[in-house]
């Protein structure tokens, strides 16, 4: 009997009735390799469904300005095409001779533009090859044979201007790993190329610094330094087998600026020491003393040569 108190709460006591049956708890299932063979079609080796998506890249895709530029380009091209077509049709209306002459003139013009386009395409393709080689060298898991071939092709391109780099060709051909290929490139190709780029940089620095010092109008300093800098970028790029056209130069300059920008913060810290040394270095001291800014312009051109060399190098930064 169970007793209930005044508050209705059930107190302790013996129950007359049998306690309710406990709920049946299923025993735990034991592990087992099952005799049952998986369904047909799943009988072979496990091939995981593994296809990771591509990661996004910063600044990928077309921005608004890009779309505007593309639209303007299309309009400009259409205007030129229709204008030229109208011109030829007009000349034919006047006389067939004038019509054919206009066809010849337009054809020659378009041919020259086409030749420039082919040259640009070749320059961009060369830049693309170096980019691909750089990506492959950064990846030790990449298969070594194609990396070796790409490296050898690049070395033969570079050897046209710097024949001494050919000495590493047998070593690269025998390399057994991507890291080994990178090692031979670093020692046998990049080192002499960097020395040559530094020589070009020193020449540009002396020329640029001197011209800046001689130019009467300080407002022209930036223009002269920019022109000499652009020429320097193309000289160094040619050294690395790139021979860039307009578009390739633009891309290269962007890369060079990016390399310089990545160390901009550190640059600020090192600037003080650098300027201190400019004041203590005899040649630069003279130039810098004559015209303020000339010494710094010279030094920046020299730095530009080295940054361009890094941008053109197939070795990833910090591995170079």
């Amino acid at each position, binding site marked *: 009997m169970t007793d209930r108190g005044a508050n209705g709460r059930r107190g302790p006591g013996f129950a007359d009735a049998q306690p309710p049956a406990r709920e049946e708890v299923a*025993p*735990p*299932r034991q*592990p*087992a*390799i*099952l005799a*049952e*063979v*998986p369904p047909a079609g*799943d*009988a*072979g*080796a*496990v*091939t*995981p469904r*593994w*296809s*990771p*998506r*591509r*990661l*996004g*890249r*910063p600044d990928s895709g077309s921005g608004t300005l890009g779309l505007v530029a593309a639209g303007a380009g299309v309009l400009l091209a259409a205007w030129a095409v229709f204008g030229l077509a109208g011109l030829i049709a007009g000349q034919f209306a006047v006389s067939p001779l004038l019509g054919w002459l206009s066809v010849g003139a337009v054809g020659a013009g378009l041919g020259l533009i086409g030749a420039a386009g082919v040259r640009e395409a070749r320059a961009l393709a060369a830049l693309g090859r170096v980019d691909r080689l750089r*990506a492959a060298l*950064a*990846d*030790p*898991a*990449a*298969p070594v044979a194609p990396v070796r071939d790409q490296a050898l092709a690049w070395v033969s391109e570079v050897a046209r201007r710097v024949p001494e780099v050919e000495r590493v060709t047998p070593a690269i051909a025998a390399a057994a790993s991507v890291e080994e290929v990178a090692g031979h490139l670093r020692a046998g190709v990049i080192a002499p190329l960097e020395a040559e780029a530094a020589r070009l*940089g*020193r020449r540009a620095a002396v020329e640029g610094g001197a011209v800046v010092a001689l130019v009467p109008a300080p407002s022209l300093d930036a223009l002269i330094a920019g022109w000499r800098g652009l020429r320097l970028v193309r000289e160094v790029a040619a050294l690395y087998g790139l021979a860039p056209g307009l578009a390739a130069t633009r891309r290269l300059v962007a890369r060079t600026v990016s390399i310089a*920008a*990545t*160390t*901009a*913060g*550190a*640059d*600020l*810290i*090192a600037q003080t020491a*650098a300027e201190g*040394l*400019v004041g*203590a*270095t*005899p*040649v*630069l001291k003279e130039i810098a003393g004559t015209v303020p800014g000339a010494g710094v312009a*010279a*030094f920046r051109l*020299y*730095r530009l040569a*080295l940054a361009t060399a890094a941008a053109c190098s197939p070795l*990833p930064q*910090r591995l170079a």
Partner: protein
Amino acid sequence: MRLVRANPLAALQRLLDLGLRTADDALNETTIRLAVTGLSRAGKTVFIVSALANLLAMGRRHDTLPALARRLGGGERLVAVHRAPSGSATVPHFDLETKLAALAGSTPAWPDRTTDLSRTAVTLTVARDGPLGRIAGPRRVTLEILDYPGEWLLDLPMLSQRYAAWSRETLALLASPPRSAAGAPFLAWLGGVRADDPADEAVARRGHELYRAALLSLREQGFRWLQPGRALNPGPRGDAPVLHFFPVPDAPEHPAPGTLAALLAERHARYREDMQETEFRGKLDRFDRQIVLVDVLGALHAGEAAFDDTARAIAAIAKALRRDGLLARLVGWAQPSHLAFAATKADHVPASARPALAALLAALIGAEATAEGRSVHAIAALCATEDVVVRRGGETVEAVSGIPVGERERRSFDPGTIPAARPDAAWWRAPPFRFDGFRPPALDPLAREGLPHLGLDRLLAEVLGDALA
């Protein structure tokens, strides 16, 4: 000075480069030492292979570790991933390519037992956010990982123990069932040996052989608290007299010179010194973050004693590696700042049972699992199975399917009920279940798109995410 006069620009460039490199290193270079620890056969080597392969594949713009990529702005801030140079490291290099080739060979095979230390490092170049961040340039986070024979880790708790205490504790453990069955020949032999017997080389060698045989037998049965580690895995230096010691009954604190106990105590002390100097100092005592891998499923299937043994071993290793006393916490030197426990081989259970596997590991670890900076996961560093639904005894059950090690055909495996907490006595009545696992899946030997895994990304995001943010 001569260089300044001869070539002022080059001298200036050299100085600037030095300044740039120093400033850049100070601003942008970070090294994280990650200790991947766990008992033998917990899957440490495969974990390191998979982590490296998937990080390198991320550098090739494949989203192999989605949870980690989210910490990197969907991967947009990840500039590059490459293997860091070895420098002049004295620790052998972790040979990723050879291990990948073995996993993806014509007869796929798991890596052999780790027999020596090896080290690897990978550098992630990560762009910073914001205009100020862009000025400072991208950060380079180098992740250093050490692979370590699991057996040796059990020597860590031994380092602070004298021979007499170790001997008492080890014999008590060995004499208790079910360990006593494996230790019976040694224990029987030990009945005729006394601590104050004269030291004898032949007796010491025989005792060591019998003790080692007992340890090997126990390891096969799933036991993990087995000391000393080099008795099971001598490493590249091989067998040496310093390993030839074993526990004896009534070992005195200060054995008389010339006795067997004195000889064994001397070897025990030299062994501890040697392990401390050669294998631990400068290696396992220098890390920032730690991942402890545990084969929970194997322990569960090996029986109650092996399960408790694993729990004890894991707790002892985690405690021995911790440097988080009050003083260390106050000055910010507490190690590890992040500690993650992971139940490995989660691909041996179907998806629905994986949360229970993680919960079981948390229960096995106890209060340590819920402390700040701790996390518990269920992972498969390399997924070797597929989930299937099969009939078992007239019942539909979720299982996994793969090719068991040593077989050629695919089979289904039902891991049974996975309890979310330590099972009660009734659970352990079933006999231990022995399963060597599944062989690796079909893989690209170069792992260009990484390696298939389960939960590795969440684990790495938990342990490393803040360093990449």
